[in-house]
């Protein structure tokens, strides 16, 4: 526990340094923040274009699909902002600069996570949140307290699930330094998956996204519960509320993977 607090403190200190560093390039910051906002907006434009041709896609109307899009992008955006730069761990292993982090009195995970912290990534969160708010206002849902509660729970659990993926991906880079892009398949690829209705995909894909890499808990299961649609695999609908538990388990597993990766690095060297 004390170590976790130490880690958070180090994260905060280092992230603050990066924010101040970025302030030296103010225009660049603005441009890239707007770019990040627009880039994630373009994928929503593609969905809008699709819905300009059809009423229903995978059994969902536009506001319902937008609910999927908004939740997934906000969750990924949160994870991307806080842990996104762990992708460049392989680079640090290759050029040896990881070693400079290992001689500092702070957990390496916190230091790597805060490395090159970029506030501009807030663009994706902003864009996702805008779509989410629009979708929440538009969807035809009989809101209950439980459903209302599920919205923030889903976003936080979703961010934690994506965060765990970032950490596992970084741990993997201890052994395969050039394989940073594999991680994109599960983060950006996962997001691309989750922004479409599960009914669009083959059963095996949905099964895999529920039980193998449980991305379905980011938004599919909770959103289907809110919309009163059944589970595509015929699973009980209360499974939507397992999202926090799944996120916790996944984070614990990611922590173990990270420790194994770091231990491997420290015993094998570079």
């Amino acid at each position, binding site marked *: 526990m004390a170590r976790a607090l130490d880690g958070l403190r180090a994260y905060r200190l280092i992230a603050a340094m990066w924010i101040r560093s970025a302030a030296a390039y103010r225009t660049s910051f603005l*441009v*890239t923040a707007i*770019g990040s906002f627009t880039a994630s907006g*373009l*994928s929503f434009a593609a969905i809008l*274009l*699709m819905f300009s*041709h059809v009423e229903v896609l995978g059994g969902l109307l536009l506001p319902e699909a937008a609910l999927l899009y908004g939740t997934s992008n906000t969750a990924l955006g949160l994870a991307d902002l806080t842990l996104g730069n762990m992708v460049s761990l392989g680079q640090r292993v290759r050029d040896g600069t990881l070693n400079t982090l290992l001689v500092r009195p702070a957990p390496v995970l916190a230091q790597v996570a805060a490395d090159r912290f970029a506030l501009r990534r807030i663009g994706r969160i902003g864009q996702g949140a805008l779509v989410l708010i629009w979708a929440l206002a538009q969807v035809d849902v009989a809101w209950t307290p439980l459903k209302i509660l599920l919205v923030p729970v889903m976003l936080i659990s979703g961010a934690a699930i994506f965060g765990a993926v970032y950490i596992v991906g970084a741990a993997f880079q201890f052994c395969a330094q050039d394989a940073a*892009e594999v991680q994109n398949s599960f983060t950006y690829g996962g997001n*691309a998956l989750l922004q479409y209705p599960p009914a669009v995909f083959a059963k095996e894909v949905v099964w895999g996204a529920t039980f193998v890499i449980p991305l379905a808990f980011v938004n599919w299961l909770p959103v289907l519960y809110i919309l009163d649609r059944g589970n595509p695999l015929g699973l009980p609908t209360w499974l939507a509320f397992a999202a926090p538990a799944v996120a916790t388990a996944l984070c614990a597993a990611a922590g173990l993977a990270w420790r194994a990766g770091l231990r491997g690095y420290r015993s094998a060297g570079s």
Partner: protein
Amino acid sequence: MLPGVMRLYVAVAVSTFRRYTAYRAATAAGVFTNIVFGFIVAYAYMALWHERPNLGGYGREQALTFVWISQALAAAMALLGGGFQEELQERIRTGEIAIDLSRPVDMQLWWLACDLGRAVFHLLSRGVVPLAVGALAFRLALPQSPLMWLAFLLSALLGAVVSFALRYLVALSSFWLLDGAGVNMVNGLLTMFFSGMLLPLTVFPGAFGETARLLPWAAVLQTPADVLLGRHHGSGLGRALLFQAGWVLVLLSAGRAMQLRATQRTVVQGG
């Protein structure tokens, strides 16, 4: 025998190709990512074309083929980033460009050779494998005739040159702008959206769609894909290739003009 000058640029392209072969793990990871995205988009398109058969003039199989062609060309055409331009921008930023300009080689051709070497590598590695996986997993509308494939390769080559020429303009803008990030960003977004990577341009509605199909980015992905899908016959094929060649000419000339201005500027500043 190739004339000596040509041989130099071929050697440059070959050496870039070789350089990329060294990154095995990165290439494998990229192939994996292309396949994952290919599957996701393929399912989404199947749902869309299930609701609207013949949307944008494509049948279901053609739509699926479009998905896998996009994934196959994504790396080669640098549709989602990558390529030479960041290296060139860095040389401009640090002033090392002055050395390049004083060399007895043409800078534009030099970087074109580099980028084509990379594109060929990416077409063979990150292109062939995802397309093969897509063809195994789904029924695709791939042509039987070798001539069609040849036409596709020609169109893809023109597309690669258009992609290069656009990024060359972007990179050279660093001579005038302090920070290339903004222009890179805008070009990246335009490329992603107007190449057809997100959705085929044939699906874009009305006048917006008609305009989008005339922009240079259309020549990078949409045209080669349509050539492979056999949507251009006879004179239509000629027109499609001419459309690409037209953009090649315009953009390379613009790049040349910009290079000239940049050279004068560098000389005036004393390097």
